[in-house]
């Protein structure tokens, strides 16, 4: 149901023109208004929290769709930030929101200050769900100014924010925003990879070389099979991360997030190769997905951060404990 609504909304209101404005770093206020009207920012909340009370599978599907449609707005981030704020009992966002962790911020005389690096659409947010140590803050837009501009590989803005704010909304941290963000990104990656596979199947069926569709060549078929394998892994990885997040198991979040990050790179390169030169242009939609895959795989804690976390857990488990640990993930 929600999936159908999301699909219809963006198919109707998100066209090439909007995508290229977003690539110039321009905010899309009309589209955001539609997102709010549909209630998407609250989609991950339970009914008691004022949300949709969606089953985990439906939450996952909604998040995957945001990737599948290459939505150039921080919808997924806002959904995740609101879930975090709701769980902490803090006020929800009244517009778009970001989520971040920044442990080197300083708190003195009730004033929080320091820099939060590379926040998606930082200029256009209503608030930030910000973790410092074990505390979550609801930092309103008036609490920061932009310092350095930043740009993601899909050309969406990632400015750094100078926080200078007298704390008036904080609570114990319910769970880590990096884990929340990494999980959401895993779903978006799975969605974008599915779009990449769709496009690659279509392209290799219609593009004729040597008198036959590309797809009739066995090497091409085998690359498609590998791409389908990466997609299967990314989809399972996102679900695995989400289940681990719900249990508060960072090792499982790491496992799911890492495999999705890896699939993003592997899948994007197969899809691009199978498209030939057209896949390397802005004329063909594939780039919306490949550039987003390359963006998302390095956000909310990098590959090294999550891989060392899981690697440390594996070393601690050792010869005897390794397999039992794997069965818990």
């Amino acid at each position, binding site marked *: 149901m929600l999936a159908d609504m999301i699909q219809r909304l963006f198919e109707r209101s998100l066209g090439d023109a909007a995508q290229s404005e977003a690539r110039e770093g321009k905010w899309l206020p009309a589209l955001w208004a539609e997102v709010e009207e549909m209630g998407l920012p609250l989609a991950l909340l339970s009914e008691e929290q004022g949300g949709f009370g969606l089953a985990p599978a439906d939450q996952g599907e909604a998040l995957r769709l945001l990737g599948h449609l290459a939505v150039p707005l921080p919808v997924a981030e806002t959904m995740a930030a609101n879930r975090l704020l709701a769980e902490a009992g803090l006020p929800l966002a009244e517009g778009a929101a970001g989520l971040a962790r920044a442990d080197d911020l300083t708190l003195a005389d009730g004033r929080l200050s320091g820099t939060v690096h590379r926040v998606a659409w930082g200029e256009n947010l209503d608030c930030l769900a910000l973790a410092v140590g074990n505390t979550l803050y609801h930092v309103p837009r008036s609490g920061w100014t932009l310092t350095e501009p930043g740009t993601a590989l899909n050309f969406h803005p990632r400015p750094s924010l100078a926080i200078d704010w007298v704390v008036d909304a904080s609570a114990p941290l319910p769970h880590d925003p990096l884990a929340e963000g990494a999980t959401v990104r895993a779903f978006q990656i799975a969605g974008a990879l599915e779009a990449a596979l769709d496009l690659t199947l279509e392209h290799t069926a219609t593009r004729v070389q040597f008198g036959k569709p590309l797809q009739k060549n066995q090497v091409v078929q085998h690359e498609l099979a590998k791409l389908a394998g990466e997609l*299967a892994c990314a989809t399972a990885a996102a679900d695995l991360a989400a289940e681990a997040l719900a249990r508060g198991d960072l090792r499982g979040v790491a*496992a799911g997030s890492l495999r999705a990050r890896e699939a993003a790179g592997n899948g994007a390169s197969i899809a691009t190769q199978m498209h030939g030169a057209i896949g390397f242009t802005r004329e063909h939609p594939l780039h919306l997905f490949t550039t987003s895959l390359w963006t998302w795989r390095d956000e909310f804690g990098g590959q090294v951060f999550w891989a060392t976390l899981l690697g440390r857990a594996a*070393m601690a488990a050792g010869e005897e404990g390794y397999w039992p640990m794997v069965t818990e993930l």
Partner: protein
Amino acid sequence: MSAIPFPAPPADSDEVLALRGEFRAFLDKHLGHRSPRQRSDNWYGFSRDFSRAMGQAGYLGMTWPKQYGGHERSAFERYVVVEESLAYGAPVGAHWIADRQSGPSIIKFGTDEQKETILPGIAAGKLAFGIGMSEPDSGSDLAATRTKAVRDGDVYRVTGTKVWTSFAHEADYVILFCRTSGTPADRHQGTSQLLVNLKDTPGLTIKPIIDLAGQHHFNEMHFEDAAVPAKNLLGAEGDGWNQVMSELAFERSGPERFLSSIELMYQLLEALRGREDDAALAMIGRLTAQLAVLRRLSRSVAAMLQAKENAGLQAAIVKDVGAVWEQTLPDFARQLVDAEPDPRTAAAYAGVLANIVHNAPSWSLRGGTREILRGIIARGLGTR
């Protein structure tokens, strides 16, 4: 939307969790004394004693009807036993093939008499099976089979050669894929399956084929006018192709398709201990993430089997992606720890690494090669 769907596996029930604990204790009791090198043999290990103990404890034929010695448990309970066996490096050779594919084929296609005489023996861990598919001129192209079985009164007279038959020298039966009419040019038509008693078939000779590591696990089976009782026909004469495809689906659907080198992972952790820098930790983390996700996909296949859905395509993906994991593990290990692998050493890491390097090439061949699997997946995507 082109994704090949993998249903989310259910969380482990209390029964499944209890079974996992029980079965780990069973493995410790029976196999606790084995060395890492022995454990790394994985399914090349063949132990009648261990298989009988598995049967006695109710760990074989788990999903089969009680009437045939089975235990009517769920696909997930069987999954636990299968994955824990492999993760432990248990010597599963004397029951593996029978429990995974021969028994299920007999349940699906066999006569009442075949079911009654054979299935209880498999469930008790007393009857071992082999797979009689490949031939010198028929590998990936199974429909090119030449082995001929000609009906002669109440026997079939079988002539031809099968190769790579794992455990033919130890097992009690093979299910033989052969041609009961026509010629290899007829392809799928005219093929059948026969239950061949390996201990009692005059005219059958079994010769070892030694693999590159010097091991004897597979064989050549030569049939020279060998008489196989006609009542040993499995299923319908002429229906061999459908039946053998179904047998392959059983063969490919298990979780063993990524755990073959798991002992190396355990030994790698120990070999790294004390010198693990961030790069090493990150590599271990990445490998662990890949493994965890493979396991989830594999449990999805179990969920599909439990729901009686056709999981052929999903199983092909798990086997394809899984074989890459188990096969490339030694290369990652070699980037982290220097050791000259030695097949005869008692040192855990160097010995296990040697065994894994020797055996890894086979994992993308047996049970359908990587190329054949990718062809199956591509067909599932609608390209062929």
